[in-house]
């Protein structure tokens, strides 16, 4: 058996390996240096001790200044990985992300580019309530000039983060709080996962399930449950949301004729809408059932446990949706 590491360790290793390989790689954000414990969850632990606080820098609580500094230092030739602690806090830095990071290459006619990575974390399930758990990936995917990735296992986290750091354009790297300690195979050192390439986790003839981030785990459980009932699911871990892997998705749905898209963001105007629209445009007349979108309830993330449990899709709701599609 391969060595097992957690997603958190995968991220930490990617940062360490990237910083060791390239001294222009920087890492900064609130509490990220070791005097501050290497982050409130220890994701960046050890990095400042190893690479120095000039390269691994804790910042004031000032997300506009953080992303502004990332943009500027990248214009000066560095490859910064900036952390916005939680995805909901991107709301205070949207100008820097959307009006500047995403647009400077285009607006400068290609003279400058912004090779930054913005790491951010989110996810329901930790009783953090309405302002700490949102999945907002659709906003960023709707912004020309940004790439968006959301790994679901340690090897992908490692490989996507390295690719994001390599990338000459801004990449939003979305981490999931509840699965930081989920284990998986350790990647080989230097392993890259190309941005824009999905991974097929299970093959099946009856139905395609497309998921990313924590929803992959729920979809996996549903896939296994359905397999026990003789239903073959092709499970696609999207990994990259913008750009997303149309080829893999369309090829699969062309075979199965049925698709469910699962995400933790609220359903309306979510990523599922885009994928559904493209599937319907591309496979018109070739589908056996309407494309199904499964997202969170259309409300802020609730605090109370039973409400939070009912908020996002689960293995059970995915399984039920699959059966309904096949009925």
């Amino acid at each position, binding site marked *: 058996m391969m060595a097992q590491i957690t997603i958190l360790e995968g991220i930490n290793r990617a940062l360490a390996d990237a910083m060791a390989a390239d001294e222009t790689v920087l890492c900064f954000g*609130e*509490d990220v240096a070791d*005097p*501050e*414990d290497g982050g*409130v969850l220890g994701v960046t632990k050890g990095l400042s001790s190893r690479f120095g606080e000039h390269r691994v820098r*804790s*910042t*004031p*609580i*000032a*997300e*506009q200044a953080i992303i502004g500094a990332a943009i500027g230092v990248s214009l000066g030739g560095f490859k910064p990985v900036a952390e916005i602690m939680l995805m*909901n*806090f991107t*709301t*205070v830095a949207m100008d820097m992300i959307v009006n500047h990071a995403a647009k400077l290459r285009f607006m400068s006619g290609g003279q400058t580019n912004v090779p930054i990575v913005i790491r951010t974390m989110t996810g329901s399930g*930790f*009783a*953090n*309530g*309405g*302002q*700490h758990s949102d999945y907002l990936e659709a906003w960023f995917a709707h912004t020309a000039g940004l790439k968006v990735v959301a790994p679901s296992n340690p090897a992908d986290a490692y490989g996507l983060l390295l690719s994001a750091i390599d990338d000459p354009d801004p990449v939003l790297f979305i981490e999931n709080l509840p699965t930081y300690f989920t284990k998986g195979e350790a990647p080989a050192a230097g392993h890259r996962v190309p941005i824009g390439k999905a991974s097929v986790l299970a093959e099946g003839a009856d139905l395609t399930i497309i998921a990313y981030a924590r929803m992959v785990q729920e979809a996996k459980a549903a896939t296994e449950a359905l397999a026990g009932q003789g239903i073959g699911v092709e499970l696609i871990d999207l990994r990259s949301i913008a750009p997303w892997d149309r080829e893999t998705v369309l090829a699969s749905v062309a075979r199965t004729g049925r698709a469910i898209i699962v995400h933790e963001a609220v359903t309306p105007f979510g990523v599922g809408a885009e994928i559904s629209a493209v599937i319907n445009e591309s496979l018109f007349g070739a589908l056996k059932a309407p494309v199904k979108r499964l997202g969170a*309830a*259309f*409300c*802020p993330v*609730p*605090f*109370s*446990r*039973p*409400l939070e449990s*009912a*908020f996002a899709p689960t293995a059970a709701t995915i399984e039920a949706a699959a059966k309904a599609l096949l009925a």
Partner: protein
Amino acid sequence: MTKRPDAATQLAIYRRMALIKANDERSRKVIMTGRLVMPYYSPRGQEVIPSAVSANLDDSDYICTIYRGTHDMLAKGVPLKDLWAELAGRVTGTCKGKGGPMHITHPKSGVMVTTGIVGSSMPIANGLAWSSQLKGDGRVTVAYFGDGASNIGAFHEALNMASVWKLPVVFVCQNNEWGEHTAYRKATAAARIADRAAAYAMPGVRVDGNDVFETYAAAREAVDRARAGGGPTLIEAMTYRFHGHIFGDADAYMDPARKAAAIAADPVPRFRAHLIAEGHASEEELAAMEARIEAEIDEAVEHALASDFPDVAELRRDVFAMEIA
């Protein structure tokens, strides 16, 4: 100016402090024993600030506070039962369990907004204060926030607007020397946050936030100024966070000696001793008060844990005025 409040007021302040301290101890115990699961930001060590501030407010005055805010809420009068039921995510909670600890709202006691976003209590407090200015209702709004929050943009925008519009608002910065794991000095260029008031042509004062009389006097002056139409004030109240940022935080980044010193100077027993020494209350009277508080907390916790969870249909309610179909 630094006139001390009368004995009854001092006792009322102490009652708040004792309540906050007891409630904090109970909260940590209830989480530790697994009876409740919630993110908990202990206000232990910061009891004096809202207790002394609230002694200058009445129920109709507004506050906006933050995730680390149970002290502010209790000092302002949020009923224990409603608070605990919310912490437990029950339908009997202030917010039917939908908001949770970071979003306690209780308009009856003037707790209008509790936010989990650093800095965001301030711009909203301005709006509440503006409503009072428009109505001439004489209310004052207090915005609580931390030292770390003094470095974020919302602070700046809010203080400038409040000063330009002469809003009846008091900005109370609880400087506990930490913003999560980052030391105040490492993140903040200003030696004193109170000095930033000058950037807004606003009175600014730094007080020992563990000193009841200093804090009370500064709040008195600021509240009076606001009520009289004199505009906003920035109060920086120096204090210390006895625990890690959030329950479960191992707090290795905190200097143990500094922490020990802060705990040794615990303002709650200190003020208790003062009350007895001054003859404002006897040991027995205070012990009885504390026992009543414990009993109230007992009752609140039991009420909370015995209450029902909200129905999942609540996911469709309160998103808009009209329930989602």
